[in-house]
């Protein structure tokens, strides 16, 4: 083998993790939450760390709970409570929103199973 062959082989071997991530990693693997309040820039936080987030909106604070790799709206000052009824979100691409309080919660991660969710 020439030196060029060695280099080519090394690059090819180093690229294997990328190939794994693209083709073999489980679809929908969630890693972070993305929270957006109004049209401000979204904030992300890891799903692995349990926490409670207080997010301020025009009606007051919506409380988002992250626990055991899942996330949900725990409480919100809206009347309809549709965000609460959305329950726990855990797959990449899942999302819920408190429209009156203009706050959205989305699960993000590698290779989401779906490009968008209809509800």
């Amino acid at each position, binding site marked *: *083998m*020439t030196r060029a*062959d060695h280099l*080519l*082989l090394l*690059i*090819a071997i180093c*690229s*294997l993790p*990328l*190939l794994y991530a*693209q*083709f073999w990693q489980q679809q929908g693997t969630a890693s972070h939450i993305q929270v*957006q309040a*109004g*049209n401000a820039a*979204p904030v992300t936080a890891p799903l692995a760390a349990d926490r409670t987030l207080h997010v301020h909106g025009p009606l007051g604070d919506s409380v988002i709970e992250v626990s055991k790799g899942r996330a949900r709206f725990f409480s919100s000052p*809206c*009347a*309809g409570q*549709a965000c609460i*009824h*959305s*329950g*726990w*979100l855990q*797959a990449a*691409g*899942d*999302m819920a*929103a408190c*429209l*009156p309080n*203009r706050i*959205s919660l*989305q699960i993000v991660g590698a290779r989401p*199973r*779906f*490009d*968008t*969710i*209809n*509800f």
Partner: protein
Amino acid sequence: MTLVRLPAILLLAIVAAACGNNGKSYHDQFFAFGTLIDVTFYDTEPNLAEQASETIAGELQTLHRQWHAWQPGQLTATNALLEQLQPFRGDPAVLPVIREANRLARLSGDLFNPTIGKLVTLWGFHDNALPIGTLPDSQAIAALVAQAPAAADVVIRDGMVSNSNPAVQYDLGAFAKGYAIDRIMERLRALGIENAILNAGGDLRAIGRHGNRPWRVGIRHPRQEGILGSIEIEGDASIFTSGDYERFFEVDGTRYHHIIDPRSGYPADTVISVTVIHGSAATADAAATALFVAGPDHWTRVARSMGVDLVMLVDTGGVVHMTPGMQQRIRFEPGAAPELRISEPLS
């Protein structure tokens, strides 16, 4: 060529193709039109994607102001004129959307009825905050139902509008989102965008595809956490769902939601959700409401009349009714396994 060179080059080519396919997606999310807008473009130049996203936000804000059912704008001004029962020149900002809503209302046998704004107000859904613990006066509901406001009461000719029913007040809540999405998709195509999903509060239209595969859309379960099934879209299709879980309040343990049956004046109570796939988002939007009101015994007749043949209806018993076409399109999640009732083909 040595023995290692060819496999290594092949491997690198596969990696390059895989990574290339993964890196061309643009995603944006913002609040507009009273809901959360979620935009995805594929294979679109970043500058064009940003410009398109701004176009969508601007257009939706304009339409929201013009078509809002209770905040002052062109639609509320039109409603005020309708109440006077005198002919008037229609506002071009609302005339086309009203004309199309009237057409679909007639096709639905008035089960999609955009003229029941007064009923919606009575139920308290003309407010960002829903009523808690109170129901509207039953006599007031009965009086409005007896007046039977309908699209046929409004005649539009040469830009002039006349109305013969004082109970008519337009509320485009079951239609405006679909009509707006159709308009915006036309703008996106004019900008040169060929692969996109525009999702407005869970209802969407998708064009093109995601690189070398179709778009994948998850349908959320109407009663449980997670996904009920999924649908792939390639080309151009809208998916709209009307559900009793979207806007509702509870009194003494009974749920009162926002989809009002114009025949009774009360929320339609035989269905949990209806999902419609159609090329036109406006038609899908109106049909989802009409079929929800029609219920499990009559939805096929209304669907045929409205020209929709991809329908899934979940009744209050959890039974899934659907057309053969929808059965071919939807893939239920493992473990969902609902009881199915498949209709006759509708077209």
